[in-house]
């Protein structure tokens, strides 16, 4: 099935020149010869077919390995944990450390539970280093168009202020709310 294609065809045409012509989809340099030369015709057919194969190869779907996201995120979490601070709760029989990342996650989920909040992102604000049991939060929100942006922000602040101490044991110093965007609620 393999053709033998040397650098120069029996008719004298150079394979490289023909390949360049097909690759660039350029007009032939010598149309009269190419039209009647069986060697050139065969070579051009094979080259054109190979160009099709290249396109097929390029379009072939690539399956992403199923565990790739988990693997990537495990490594990113590892890295992030070396950088993040901890909430420290001192009790009579030992201390509990909770990564600020977890505290932010709890705050984010609490904010998302407020009707009208479409997206939320939370960041802890480091307080007094001598008081690691206290945190401040900044919440960034995308909210649904509604009657009162201010009332919604207040509801989020109240809920986060209530949920965070209950779930994490942290004392919450302040909850700042930044409304990042307003959207039409897709579920409304």
């Amino acid at each position, binding site marked *: 099935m393999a053709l033998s294609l040397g650098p120069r065809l029996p008719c004298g045409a150079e394979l490289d020149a023909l390949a360049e012509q097909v690759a660039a989809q350029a007009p032939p340099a010598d149309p009269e010869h190419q039209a009647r030369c069986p060697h050139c015709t065969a070579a051009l057919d094979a080259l054109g077919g190979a160009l099709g194969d290249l396109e097929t190869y390029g379009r072939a779907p690539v399956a992403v390995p199923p565990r790739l996201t988990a693997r990537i995120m495990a490594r*990113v979490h590892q890295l992030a944990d070396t950088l993040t601070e901890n909430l420290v709760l001192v009790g009579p029989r030992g201390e509990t450390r909770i990564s600020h990342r977890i505290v932010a996650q709890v705050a984010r989920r609490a904010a998302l539970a407020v009707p009208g909040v479409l997206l939320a992102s939370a960041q802890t604000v480091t307080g007094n280093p001598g008081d690691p049991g206290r945190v401040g939060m900044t919440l*960034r929100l995308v909210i649904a168009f509604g009657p009162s942006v201010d009332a919604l922000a207040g509801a989020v602040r109240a809920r986060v202020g209530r949920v965070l101490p209950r779930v994490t044991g942290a004392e919450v110093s302040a909850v700042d709310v930044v409304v990042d965007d307003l959207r039409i609620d897709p579920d409304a």
Partner: protein
Amino acid sequence: VEDVDDRFLLDAARAGDLDAFAVLVRRHQPAVYRVALRMLGSEADAQDAAQETFVRAWRALPRFRGDSATSTWLYRIVTRRSLDVLAARRPSESLEAAPAPAGTDPAEAAEQHERLRAVARAVAALPPEQRAALVLREFEGLPYDQIAEVLDTTVPTVKGRIHRARTTVIREAAAWR
């Protein structure tokens, strides 16, 4: 959450929200993995390169101001990473990954598989910079100016590399037809 734009997710990720970063990973990893696989030819190496790409992206978040599209930024990182891996390989280690053929007739499928293997081998044998340009153009379908940005070069250089790469690949693969 999946339909929110990259900008919100990048801001959130920059502020330390790893869930937002995970959404970005899920969104962009198919392209990142595809490029790595086509550049490196090995699934194991492509997974390593994809992981390294997102770790670098995570580290670089504070410096990424969104001047270019997120996809361009990630294409840059994965392409550079793949070029580094290729540079560190011994020349004999070129690998190729041919996709499974789609045809139903076994004889035809086997023949198509052979032809695609020939293409894969020819792509694997290209000089790395030509290979990168070809992968971004033919396989990812990027416009020339975006490829130039990803590869830190000019549009004429990109066009030249792609033309040389296509010429070489079809000349090598034509011998198998």
